[in-house]
């Protein structure tokens, strides 16, 4: 015998015919965001989910910022960088009884013209980075299963435990204290989201290296999984890099921090170490795994993070109102950061002689790094600083 059926309480579906096209009326076909101008002919999916989420009192934010710091300044002050985009010298529209709420015509100033050429939002970000960590896991697992680490000669084991290990600290420190910090400070959502993604690339790469280090500790008997800490703390070859990395996190101006890290530090130190040393030396020393882990980080920088950074600064060095002003500021940044980066790069030179199978010469690698750096400056309409010849 079954219990009598009791009707459950649940909402009843109802045919409402509330789908697009069911009726014609004013606005019934206006199916795009009408508050911003796209960079290209059509609004992109990336723009739709990114543009204008972070407000601006100069165009639509009628009542202004509502919460301020103790000095009374709220939101995202434009003078958190000394660089300028066209239109910024106009003050916020004045508000008073009966003033109305209209601001300047969108975009009001040039900062809003920046778009991340990688078009990163959450869907693309997790898709890309999941692929990266999956591929790294597979590479490392395959190496483990095929006993590939047994091919490494002893000097190479030391090289990886110390030097590849030390690099994880650079990524971690800059990822957190430079990039994650900077994503609070730029004037638009397009800037800050791109910087957030950059931050996570670095933090992920740092973790990739740390977990690879853990695997090597488990797979290679002589591998010292803690040697990276000592190297980072004490090895004279690394103290120049560490000093510059720390100094980068001490920069107050968010744009200078991004510029110094992605335009100066990365080509002259990051790529020099990763591409001109680790990637070149690994195969000769029996290591086909490390380049896949390091290569993933290299790809993030070279194909994504540098790309958005160039787009960000190209606008500023070609700004219709402040191009010369901005170039003057950036030249000053170059004069400051290039010598520091080159000095730190040269301190790394002893690393080139450590592996048994030698990579191409340090000077050749540095020349290639300088040449690459010079090309980036040229793309940004900037001249080589005289310090580059150092």
């Amino acid at each position, binding site marked *: 015998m079954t219990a009598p059926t009791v009707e459950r309480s649940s909402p009843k579906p109802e045919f409402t015919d509330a789908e697009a096209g*069911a009726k014609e009326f004013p606005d019934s076909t206006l199916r*795009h965001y009408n508050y911003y101008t796209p960079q290209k002919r059509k609004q992109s999916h990336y723009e739709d989910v990114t543009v204008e989420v972070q*407000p601006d009192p100069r165009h639509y934010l009628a009542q202004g910022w509502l919460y301020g710091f103790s000095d009374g300044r709220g939101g995202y002050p434009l003078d958190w960088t000394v660089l300028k985009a066209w239109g910024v010298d106009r003050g916020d529209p004045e508000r008073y009884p009966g003033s109305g709420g209209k601001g300047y015509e969108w975009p009001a100033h040039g900062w809003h013209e920046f778009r991340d050429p990688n078009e990163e939002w959450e869907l693309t970000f997790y898709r890309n980075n999941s692929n990266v960590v999956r591929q790294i896991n597979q590479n490392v697992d395959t190496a483990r299963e095929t006993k590939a680490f047994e091919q490494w000669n002893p000097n190479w084991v030391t090289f990886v435990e110390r030097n590849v290990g030390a690099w994880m600290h650079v990524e971690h420190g800059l990822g957190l204290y430079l990039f994650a910090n900077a994503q609070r400070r730029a004037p638009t959502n397009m800037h800050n989201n791109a910087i957030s993604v950059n931050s996570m690339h670095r933090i992920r790469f740092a973790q990739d290296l740390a*977990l690879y280090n853990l695997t090597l500790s488990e797979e290679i008997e002589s591998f010292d999984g803690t040697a990276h800490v000592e190297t980072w703390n004490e090895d004279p070859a690394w103290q120049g890099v560490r000093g510059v990395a720390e100094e980068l996190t001490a920069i107050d101006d968010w744009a200078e921090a991004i510029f110094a890290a992605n335009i100066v530090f990365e080509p002259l130190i990051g790529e020099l170490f990763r591409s001109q040393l680790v990637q070149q030396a690994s195969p000769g020393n029996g290591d086909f795994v490390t380049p896949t882990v390091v290569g993933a980080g290299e790809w993030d920088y070279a194909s994504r993070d540098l790309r958005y950074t160039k787009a960000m600064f190209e606008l500023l060095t070609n700004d219709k109102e402040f191009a010369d002003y901005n170039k003057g500021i950036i030249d000053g940044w170059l004069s400051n950061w290039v010598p520091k980066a080159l000095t730190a790069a040269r301190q790394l030179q002893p690393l080139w002689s450590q592996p048994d199978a030698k990579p191409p010469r340090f000077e050749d690698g540095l020349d290639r790094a300088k040449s690459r750096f010079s090309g980036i400056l040229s793309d940004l309409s900037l001249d080589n600083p005289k310090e580059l010849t150092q």
Partner: protein
Amino acid sequence: MTRQSVAKAHEKIQELAWEPLYHEPVSQYGTDYTFSKAKKKDPLNQVLRSDFPMQEEKDHRVYGAADGAIRGNMFRQVQERWLEWQKLFLSIIPLPEISAARAMPLLFNTVPNPELHNGQAIQMIDEVRHSTIQQNLKRLYMNNYIDPAGFNSSLRNFQNDYCGTIGRQFAEGFITGDAITAASIYLTIVAETAFTNTLFVAMPAEAAANGDYLLPTVFHSVQSDESRHISNGYATLLMALADEGNHQLLERDLRYAWWNNHRVVDAAIGTFIEYGTKDRRKDRESYAEMWRRWIYDDYYRSYLVPLEKYGLVIPHDLIEESWNQIWNKGYVHEVAQFFCTGWLANYWRMDPMTDKDFEWFEYKYPGWYDKYGKWWENYARLSTPNGHHPIVAEDVDYQYPHRCWTCMVPCLVREDMVMAEVDGQMRTYCHEACRWTDVEAFRPTYQGRETPNMGQLIGKREWETLYHGWNWADVVSDMGYVRDDGHTLVAQPHLNLDPKKMWNLDHLRRMPPLQSPNVLLNEMTPAEQQAFHANYIKGGPAGRPAPADA
């Protein structure tokens, strides 16, 4: 994840942190709290190698559901009454989300425990996820729902609308002022731990009941991240409690954060759930019942009260007062009535209530009809243009309210309104707790203690003042709440899309000018101001002016 366990991997990544030898990271945010450096556990216990594929899998489910909704013609059964209110909600919420991402670095220097920074970085990218996934949901609504107006103008309108401005506190409060007040107490301890329950759990359930299963899909995915953000907040709170010198500030900040969240979130979400639904089953929970379950029992009794033994002073009085506001003083009903009074200055359509709605309200909130029924009958009567003005300019026994200078929700529970002269301006507050927030809490000294890092309440906080003396047609044009014929309003006080039944600028042109209550108040003599106040607090409920003999 490979053979390495997450725990082992997580332990390994602790080796990444290092103390600066040559240069300290820049310090850009201050706090009056003090923290001692001690080894702490990262409460998230998460590595990106497992986090990213997990988030990707969650995305697969969300976007799969979105495809399914379109293929399955979900919008044929979505209630317009419900989706119209989403034009407000989804214009607000991406900013609070992204502001939570921006808030994380406020904690890096002020909470000097690098073990916590890994969790904060993961929260940062989670928040980027939430902001963009929500913008994407809105985009889908704009493309597939019958009336795209208000979705298509979403972020412009959010930024210049007074309802959006109220909601914007739930974003700017995370990123400015004292770093711990903002990014820890207001954001993680109160907003995320208490109020995301009603935002992201209770409200999606109501969406599903109104034929929309995409909102629950997206927001439950979001809420699964919130639970770990709560752990971030808890870890910082325990550290703050370890120093007795922080207890006074914690008490201040919990009072401010609790009350502001109640004023803002309960106003908005309460209105969406009670007045945006067509589900009038008697056994479905009212907002008051949900609040009692999710906020009073789950948050207050299960989370906050146990912290009392560590020295946390819990604002019991304000929590009970919030319940009093919701249950006895009709806070949500007063807010919904005000939203609909000012329908023309917004960007969504607000459906009148019907007899079925009346019956449900009376069942859930005994005495509702006597207070609010007549006004809603007037709202329905005046909903299509027929020679009369919009309800705000008609005599329906409703006194247009003053703004609360602090929370910016008007002073709707009339008897609670207080005034104070601050910085040469007579300000009105919806409640003593909002006066305290402005006059006492957000100041450089608090109870005699120097609080140089405390933030300030800034901005033009009464919307009406910007348009004082303007014709309503010009107000609505200035704000951009006009459809593509240049004539018909985006907002309507009904759901009928027949252009002949829709309000347009000509109707508004005939109205008397908008007057800012605060400007008028400040034109009065002190004696007139006191008399005005005495009269105002005798008004209500339901916005009724004080009786003539009062």
